[in-house]
């Protein structure tokens, strides 16, 4: 017969000590957020679990790539080439606009627009709390991710990083109940803040007066106020406006443009406040864009033409 307690203090005493430690931890974590080291250490223990859970999904993607037929790959290649051509055409225009913008900004002696660095991160297929909108990314402090870093997908702003570990990081989506992002209607420039609602299909715009010029279908872009999100990234599309005259403000709902629940790959963005220390890393992402724009000869011609046109005016 073994005794119940092999050694050390009794379970009751330990329980009381741990209750006190828990309360202290929660207070410190909530008030001062100084427990990143503890979180990091524990996340190392959690990493194998996340790895094993994500493994079948990664295997699926891998096998899909490896086992696809040549015909499929050729088709995909053709589609991508078409898409790239279209993007290039659009980029030509964009580059001209950007240069024009820069010139105008110089004329106004405004601060020049800074460019951002990007890095592709993959979403690790793990579910966290069903009542919080968190995703786990496969990039962490080893890749210079930082707390508060914005993440975007091909369609718009997705959210921001809230915890950074060495190999992974956790990001909060813009639809989380405790998230808010400063936005602006791109048609009118009206500023507002889009609050997450806990639903992936809509955000709430608050404090918009009754006489505001706002319509269903208006696009919301990030305003860059608050200095966390970069400016001018698409965020959401207004889907519903409820003008109840009894209320002080109108009730506006907007659907996020980013595919919050289906994206597999996201972009980490380094803004001007947080420059990326190692510029080599972003080469694969940025280099093709620059080339695509710079190698087109028409662009230069068009620009000259435009400059003369500007001069005529």
């Amino acid at each position, binding site marked *: 017969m073994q*005794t119940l307690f092999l050694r050390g203090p009794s*379970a009751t005493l330990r329980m009381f000590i741990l209750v006190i430690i*828990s309360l202290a931890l929660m207070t410190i974590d*909530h008030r001062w957020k100084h427990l990143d080291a503890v979180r990091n250490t524990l996340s190392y223990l*959690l990493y194998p679990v996340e790895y094993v*859970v994500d493994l079948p999904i990664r295997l699926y993607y891998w096998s899909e790539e490896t086992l696809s037929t040549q015909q499929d790959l050729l088709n995909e290649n053709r589609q991508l080439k078409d898409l790239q051509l279209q993007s290039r055409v659009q980029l030509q225009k964009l580059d001209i606009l950007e240069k024009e913008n820069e010139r105008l900004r110089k004329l106004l002696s405004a601060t020049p627009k800074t460019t951002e660095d990007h890095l592709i991160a993959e979403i690790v297929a793990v*579910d*966290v709390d069903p009542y*919080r909108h968190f995703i786990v990314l496969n990039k962490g402090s080893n890749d210079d991710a930082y707390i508060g870093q914005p993440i975007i997908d091909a369609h718009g702003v997705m959210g921001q990083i*809230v915890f950074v570990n060495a190999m992974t990081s956790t990001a909060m989506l813009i639809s989380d109940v405790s998230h808010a992002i400063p936005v602006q209607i791109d048609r009118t420039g009206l500023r507002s803040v889009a609050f997450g609602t806990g639903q992936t299909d809509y955000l709430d715009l608050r404090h918009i007066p009754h006489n505001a010029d706002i319509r269903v279908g208006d696009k919301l872009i990030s305003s860059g106020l608050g200095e966390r999100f970069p400016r001018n990234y698409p965020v959401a599309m207004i889907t519903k406006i409820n003008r109840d005259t009894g209320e002080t403000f109108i009730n506006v709902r907007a659907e996020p443009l980013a595919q919050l629940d289906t994206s597999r790959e996201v972009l980490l963005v380094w803004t001007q406040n947080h420059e990326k220390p190692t510029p080599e890393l972003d080469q694969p992402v940025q280099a093709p864009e620059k080339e695509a724009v710079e190698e087109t000869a028409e662009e230069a011609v068009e620009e000259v033409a435009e400059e003369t046109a500007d001069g005529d005016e």
Partner: protein
Amino acid sequence: MATSNLKIASLSLFVAFMLTIMPLPEWVVEFRPDWVTLVLIYWAMALPARTGVTIAWLAGLMLDVSHGAILGQNALGLMLVIYIVHIQHQRLRVASLVQQAIVVFFLLLLKQLIVLWVSGIVGHAPHTWLYFMPTITGAMLWPWIYIIMRDMRRKFGYNVNY
């Protein structure tokens, strides 16, 4: 002897963590039982000398990290649940599976309430009754979890009869 039990206990805990973060279709996510708590309740009943409040507290801390919750939230709830199982394990062991399931229901409810209480203080408590679904699914699954874990322990672990 105890090492093989310890191996099975850690393995089952690893699987419990896997099940906790495994992606599921959206409509079942809210029904996902609290695997880690269930597995720890079993081990606190079966091996009370090995599965104490400290282990439970550390497992809860890991849950907090994986959920992105306030550190200590799940740890506190899980630790208190395991403390109750720990001091009552001799009564719980002789109870029938249905009686055990009822007790497990209240234990899971206690943990959910503690977590909810902390979430409420911090300011993001979920506003839906579905929040308590894991308590019900967990209690309903208890007999199967108990039988599977017991058979695993008997087959692979050393059978300690105390």
